[in-house]
């Protein structure tokens, strides 16, 4: 049976490596995660639905989804610009910018949280300028968008960059020699090629933004119904020892995240197939 599941190989260590991998995966990830299903199941369908459709939960879903969508739209546009500039142009400071793009990955979210709150508060460097024209960022939904934009920044840049790097310039030259203008070349030749990576990057950034907690709680103000994101609501329910309610909301959230993960996997498989065919 084992032979049929696994192709034969001269290399040793499959049993040990695979055994440890599965054991550790179950112990650290799968068994802990399964408790969410068990705890939500204790509520029954009716109870589950009551928690999910409570006004406070719905308000948090709307806020988390809405703020993530706006942040991802900003990153979708500027991520493309940044990737384009970093790959195609040579200018002083390029390497520094390129290296710094990963900062939001490496910087702890609590640090990002207090930094952005300070910058955008009414006496911060940016906040004070915006206050003059009547825009308040810290402690409003706008603040959440700022934090999520920061968090999602590297995803789009880093997924588009490698595709732009290996793109065949000959095709662009051919388009130009056939009379296409730069904009037309971009839209008809370059964009279709970038699209899968772009969508993947945007989806990854969206999934990350949805679950983000650390950078948002500082800047959001955390007012129930107004600036309370879903992860914070889960946290509050846990603090009140409402474990079943917290699990129900977490389960609804996990279903969304896993669907996004599945979508990204399918996109990548399509991309792999397309590359193999070429």
């Amino acid at each position, binding site marked *: 049976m084992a032979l049929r*599941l*696994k*192709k034969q190989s*001269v*290399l*040793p260590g499959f049993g040990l490596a*695979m055994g*440890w*991998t599965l054991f*550790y*995966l179950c112990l*650290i*990830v799968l068994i802990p995660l399964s*408790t*969410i299903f068990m705890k939500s199941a204790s509520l029954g369908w009716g109870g589950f639905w009551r928690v999910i459709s409570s006004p406070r939960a719905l308000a948090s879903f709307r806020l988390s989804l809405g703020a993530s969508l706006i942040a991802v739209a900003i990153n979708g546009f*500027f991520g493309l*610009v940044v990737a384009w500039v970093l790959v*195609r*142009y040579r200018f002083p400071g390029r390497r520094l*910018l390129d*290296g*710094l793009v*990963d*900062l939001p990955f*490496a*910087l*702890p*979210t*609590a*640090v*990002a949280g207090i*930094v*952005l709150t*300070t*910058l955008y508060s009414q006496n911060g*460097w*940016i906040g004070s300028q915006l206050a003059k024209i009547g825009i308040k960022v810290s402690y409003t939904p706008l603040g959440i968008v700022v934090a999520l934009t920061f968090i999602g920044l590297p995803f789009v840049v880093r997924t588009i960059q490698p595709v732009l790097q290996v793109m*065949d*310039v*000959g095709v*662009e030259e051919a388009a*130009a020699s056939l009379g296409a203008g*730069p904009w037309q070349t971009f839209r008809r030749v370059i964009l279709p090629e970038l699209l899968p990576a772009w969508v993947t990057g945007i989806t990854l950034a969206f*999934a990350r933004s*949805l*679950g*983000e*907690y*650390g950078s948002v709680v*500082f800047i959001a103000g955390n007012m129930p119904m107004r600036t309370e994101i879903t*992860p914070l609501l*889960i*946290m509050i329910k*846990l603090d009140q020892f409402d*474990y079943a309610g917290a699990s129900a909301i*977490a389960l609804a*959230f996990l279903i969304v995240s*896993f669907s996004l*993960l599945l979508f990204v*996997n399918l996109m990548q498989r399509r991309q792999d197939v397309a590359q193999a065919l070429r």
Partner: protein
Amino acid sequence: MPPEEVTTEIVSAPAPGPIREAVAARRDPPAVRWALIAACFGFLGLFLLLPLATVFVNALGRGVEVYLRALTDPEALSAIRLTLLTAGIAVPLNLVFGIAAAWSIARFDFAGKRVLITLIDVPFSVSPVISGMVFVLLFGAQGLFGRWLIDHGIRIVFAVPGLILATTFVTFPYIARELIPTLQALGSEEEEAALTLGASGWRTFFRVTLPNIKWSLLYGVILCNARAMGEFGAVSVVSGHIRGLTNTMPLYIEILYNDYQFSAAFAVASLLTILALVTLIAKGIVEWKSEAEVPEIYKVSAEEQP
């Protein structure tokens, strides 16, 4: 990395490196080019450079003495110790797992491989709050093992073991994700040769495999460590905020900030920021090293680039 791939790439490329780049740059009108570069600087300046400057300006704003006093405060020192301890356990655990997972996935063909890869990625797509929550559901007072743990006087949640578990969960995929593609790209010819020459499995691993993957292994460890030391949401759920006892550095930053001790909060934050910058520099070095170490015969296409 079989040599065939390199040859096809050279054949299909219309013009070698420098010319391709010059052509690409020339095709965008200068006005567009400068507008895009300005937009890039503006966006990254606003979202990356300004926040970085904010950390250090606020940390050092009241002078070096205040800065050092904030860092040598007993509570700060205990937070630093706890952070080091947590990462010191979580990272090695995930390192062993990363090697085992990469070895089985990159070296063998078996049913369900794609599912396994997806499952390894799961902690990436779970909100940090949910990552912490699962351990409260398991080991909290009302949790699955809650009663049993209380009867036996064992504390996991709201104590150090919970912090370690949550951190291990959150940083679970990092090293495996770095190693799998590297090991796959290397191919197993060298290992098979070592085995046919009579080396044992472990000897082959330590003398052939490990030297080949050392740079991506190092980078995976650095990345995993940065995330382990900086994790906030998950540890926040399991810590229960017991002052001085279960505060890691990010949790301590939150307490200081909420107490309006801004310079102290930024002083501790500056340490984590330096860690982040070191991580980024290490990434650059590792990328450069692993490129430099590509064997001579594979370098054909690389030499033609500037």
